[in-house]
């Protein structure tokens, strides 16, 4: 469900294969989250293809005002997803860039139709697990209290709000305590964090305080930008709370 209560997207048939778009942040900083995402999909009997030619959705340059440069990088991705399979992305933000902003970015370009076609096949990972694969997890882990950080773009661009929490609630030994301000941005914002470091620090400071108030041992999120920011602040502030990507958390709890 998206924020305005409409169903986020029409259902599709369960596919035999999917593409996995790992994202550049996962590639460099959280490859274990990417592997976990692929293993979760494989465990559901889906063949996962990881095109080695992929790199980045182009969002960093796009949001910085460098659209030509973003277009060049986005265009380079198009070749690697030729099959008519869904493209699953372990990030609401990168998925949002591809499915919502690529159509604008490619507007008037000779490959606009192709870009739109690729964009229309993009799914955020938890959305795909819930809506298409209808996964049922069995919790294998010890009791733990966690909280959930909702990524802005997952919520507001991909319409993913309830799906990740529904997955976490399937885990019998996991107690999910919601944040007081779950919908509020953590202050990452891509280049915002370094362009306005003090404001970003204040934002993530509020987020950390909110997380601490829940008494959770871990904060789970579906976006590595948020995670890098929040985990970095937790670690920098020596807080005994672990930041973890939802794919990795689900994998750990269910052994794939």
């Amino acid at each position: 469900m998206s924020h305005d209560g409409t169903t986020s997207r029409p259902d599709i048939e369960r596919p035999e294969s999917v593409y996995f778009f790992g994202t550049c942040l996962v590639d460099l900083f959280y490859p274990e989250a990417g592997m976990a995402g692929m293993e979760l999909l494989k465990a559901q009997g889906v063949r996962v293809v990881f095109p080695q030619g992929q790199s980045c959705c182009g969002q960093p340059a796009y949001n910085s005002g460098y659209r030509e440069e973003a277009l060049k990088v986005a265009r380079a991705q198009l070749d690697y997803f030729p099959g008519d399979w869904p493209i699953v992305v372990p990030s609401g933000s990168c998925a949002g860039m591809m499915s919502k902003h690529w159509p604008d970015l490619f507007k008037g370009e000779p490959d606009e139709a192709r870009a739109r076609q690729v964009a229309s096949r993009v799914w955020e990972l938890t959305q795909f697990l819930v809506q298409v694969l209808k996964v049922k997890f069995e919790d294998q882990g010890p009791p733990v209290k966690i909280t959930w950080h909702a990524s802005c773009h997952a919520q507001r661009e991909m319409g993913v709000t309830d799906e990740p929490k529904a997955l976490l609630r399937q885990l019998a030994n996991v107690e999910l305590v919601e944040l007081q301000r779950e919908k509020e941005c953590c202050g990452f914002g891509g280049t915002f964090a370094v362009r306005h470091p003090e404001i970003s620090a204040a934002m993530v400071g509020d987020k950390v305080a909110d997380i601490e108030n829940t008494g959770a041992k871990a904060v789970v999120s579906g976006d590595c930008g948020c995670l890098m920011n929040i985990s970095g602040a937790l670690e920098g502030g020596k807080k005994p709370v672990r930041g973890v990507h939802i794919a990795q958390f689900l994998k750990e709890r269910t052994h794939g």
Partner: protein
Amino acid sequence: MGETSINFAKASSAALQDQQLRGNFRRAMDGLMSKRAVQFADTAEWNGVRTLGASVRLRALSKLPELLEKLEANCTKNGIQVHWASTTDEANAIVLSIMQRVNAKLVVKGKSMVSEEMHLNAFLEKHGIESLESDLGEYIVQLDEAMPSHIIMPAIHMNTKQIAHLFKQKIKEAEYTEDVAQLTDLARRVLRKKFATADVGISGVNMAVAETGTLCLVENEGNGRMSTTVPPVHIAVMGLEKVVEKLEDVPPVISLLTRSATAQPITTYVNMISSPRKEGEKDGPNEIHLVILDNGRSGIYADEELRNTLRCIRCGACMNHCPVYTKVGGHAYQAPYPGPIGSILMPQVEGLEKRGELPHACTMCNACVEICPVKIPIVEIMGRLRSEAVHPGDAVRGAGSHASKAEAMVWKGWSMTYASPLAYQFATALLAKLGNAAPASLPLLKEWTNVRAKPRFANRTLHALAREKGIPDV
């Protein structure tokens, strides 16, 4: 207006140090957000009225020149004198000439953001005319010789204690009290006297109806009605985008406005002003003037995408929901319109040379877009302005003024690397090997590590892991 760049980063840094201020905003904005959510709890109703409101504004903008002419004709027919101003200087001069003709010495003002845009109070003061704000929040801010920090709640940056001290210090007859009712009563007593003796009343306009020549004004304190009916002359100032086509367009827009702004189904006063006092009537001003201000708006109108900025009905909800505004408060923006709408409007009105930093005062979280009652694609426009700021062009004044050769080189290098699988895999493999050796004192990394641990590159990239695990490539 000078072209020196306004330093948002510096001002916000100062604001962040002020714990009292941060607390005031956090509490106030949390309250406003939850109250608004109650007003729009029925999602289907919200979607319906929002779509209607957006379509009213879109329709008005789609025939703006025609509607403005119609508004002028119908106002004139009703006895309202219409004046056109392309700049704030022209608008101020028009107001002054009316004042001088009636020999005005004292003006009472209802709340008007356009008058803030004009810096009207300071201008009138320079010409020996006392201009008194009669909206309680505006009155407080004026006493404090400050700027409004929010377009709906101008004194929201202050708490009761601070206001109590201010009143004690600035109002002769005041005794120190933190009782809100007593403070309000004190301001009321001061203002009442002024209403009775004011020569001119000034107000803003929430909406002007083209087909009837009616000026709509919503307010809660009655000061708007007093300012527009007691003094013998009423001058209304409005931005040229505030016109709607028909009378039936008013209810959905007012409903969206008051529920979004103050979480009220309707304000205490809704003024529909259609003419000066007619023969035989016992109250109302003898003259009404409507000053319609352009100040860059027709330039915004010329661009189809940027035009959406002009849909705004000035409810201020984007501020209340903005995680950046909530942290730094309104003053950091140093603009009559702060927050998300200010960050897209000010650069277009005053040019990117001066305001080019504002579109970056945003994490692109889309919280504002989610609640905007007229569906302004604020974040899309933010992105467009970021692009305009670094690329010369003629759509926005000052386009290209923030271009930096170094930054352009970085993005060029980035795109060359990221668009080539070979270069990308080489670069990422290198970072996986050597990236963690980068010292935390490097630019960018330094800003990041002020409050955060250094991000750690993984030993092997996802590409490498996928290959090792035999995940198919095609």
